[in-house]
């Protein structure tokens, strides 16, 4: 029998927590909370039902599964049905969204077509304070269109979403740890979650940045004092974190430097392309003006094919540059796998 104290000992106290929020969003007694700290806190009742432990992708038990899974995928970007270079065909979406509007277009498509009746996304205020939200239509989706790379415990509000009786089927957009947690939920006895979460849209991710460090990073690394309200979005291009302002000015921080401002839990992730998703999307490997789109399930492949067939996505000629991505992923995986040997020591 496990409970939150095991999670605390194994994951929170060793700084392995990815911050996905799955433990918070699945606790049946709503006893776990994020209160501005990096790790969840316990405040409430615990019936030792093991739910929090069973959905965490970073426990000793599950880390072993993930690490053992890694070598067989080491030379690839995970299993897939299809690989595409794609962008939205809607100029208005491209203009407003991030990453050539692929995810925004997919969300619009699945909500319009009734594939799901809600999508779990991340939105932010003018100060780039992010929070999870349930999008029920395209006007909601637009609010999430440019939020990326800032840590948000996406799944922390999941219980609220699945308990909403007006929501029958949900799509979740998130980074690889979020997709891993959804897989853990799928393997658990939490039938209500399994019944409602229908589609996983994963984002490529090397690491995620803590909001509290954004101003510090910009101040220290760029020698600038930028009001967060002037930031249009963050992006990652060619090994650099791009800070784009409202006036289209771009500043670049090498990823190696930016990594110092990432969540420490990211050091224990060996999935960079959201291998546990139905559809995964990212910049890496893609030519100019396109994103790399990888479909991993029949459902994901069907959606992308429908969108291409319906003219909602424009595809570029696929070349094997995506293999260069696989090589980078392979190298990074091998580096990260070493962190599992002695996680506590790694923290020091």
């Amino acid at each position, binding site marked *: 029998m496990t409970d939150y104290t095991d999670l605390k000992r194994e994951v929170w106290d060793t700084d392995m927590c990815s911050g996905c929020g799955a433990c918070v969003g699945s606790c*049946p007694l709503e006893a776990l909370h994020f209160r501005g700290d990096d790790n969840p806190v316990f405040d409430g009742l*615990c019936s030792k039902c093991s739910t929090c432990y069973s959905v965490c992708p970073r426990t000793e038990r599950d880390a072993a599964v993930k690490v053992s899974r890694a070598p067989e995928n080491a030379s690839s970007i995970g299993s897939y049905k299809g690989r595409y270079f794609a962008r939205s065909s809607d100029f208005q979406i491209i203009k407003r969204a991030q990453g050539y509007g692929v995810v925004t277009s997919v969300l619009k498509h699945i909500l319009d077509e009734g594939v799901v009746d809600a999508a779990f996304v991340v939105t932010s205020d003018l100060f780039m304070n992010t929070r999870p939200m349930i999008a029920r239509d395209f006007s909601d989706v637009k609010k999430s269109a440019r939020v990326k790379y800032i840590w948000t415990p996406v799944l922390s509000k999941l219980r609220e979403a699945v308990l909403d009786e007006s929501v029958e089927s949900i799509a979740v957009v998130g980074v690889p740890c979020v997709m891993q947690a959804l897989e853990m939920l799928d393997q658990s006895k939490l039938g209500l979650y399994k019944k409602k979460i229908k589609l996983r849209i994963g984002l490529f991710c090397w690491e995620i940045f803590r909001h509290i460090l954004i101003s510090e990073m910009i101040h220290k690394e760029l020698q600038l004092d930028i009001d967060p309200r002037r930031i249009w979005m963050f992006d990652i291009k060619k090994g650099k974190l791009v800070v784009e302002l409202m006036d289209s000015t771009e500043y670049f921080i090498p990823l190696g430097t930016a990594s110092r401002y990432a969540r420490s839990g990211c050091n224990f992730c060996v999935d960079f392309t959201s291998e546990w998703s139905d559809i995964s999307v990212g910049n890496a490997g893609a030519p100019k003006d396109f994103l790399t789109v990888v479909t991993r399930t029949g459902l994901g492949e069907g959606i992308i094919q429908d969108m291409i067939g319906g003219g909602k996505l424009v595809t570029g000629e696929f070349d094997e540059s995506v293999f260069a991505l696989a090589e980078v992923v392979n190298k990074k995986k091998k580096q990260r796998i070493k962190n599992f040997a002695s996680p506590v020591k790694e923290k020091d």
Partner: protein
Amino acid sequence: MNIGLEAVGLEGCIYCGACFRNCSLNAYSELDGLELKSLVSAVTRITRRGVRSEKDKAIIELLERCTLQGDCDKFCPSLVQPVLRNKIAKSKISEEGGK
């Protein structure tokens, strides 16, 4: 009295106590986490096999607070139907003379 037992979905129960915790009548608010777990466990046992021991008296008293209103069903994360479970448990207690 095994009719309906399959429909309850007891095999999915994680004994979290969310059903009693979220009782719309607030009838179990004084119970802590482990007491909630014990209550679910005992009610599940009674639902499956009937009343077996003197110790069940306390459980029977707690279960008497349940009016089978049904709001707890929607809080179960593992799709068990607590109302149906409680109904069967109450029925078994009644059949066995509420011992």
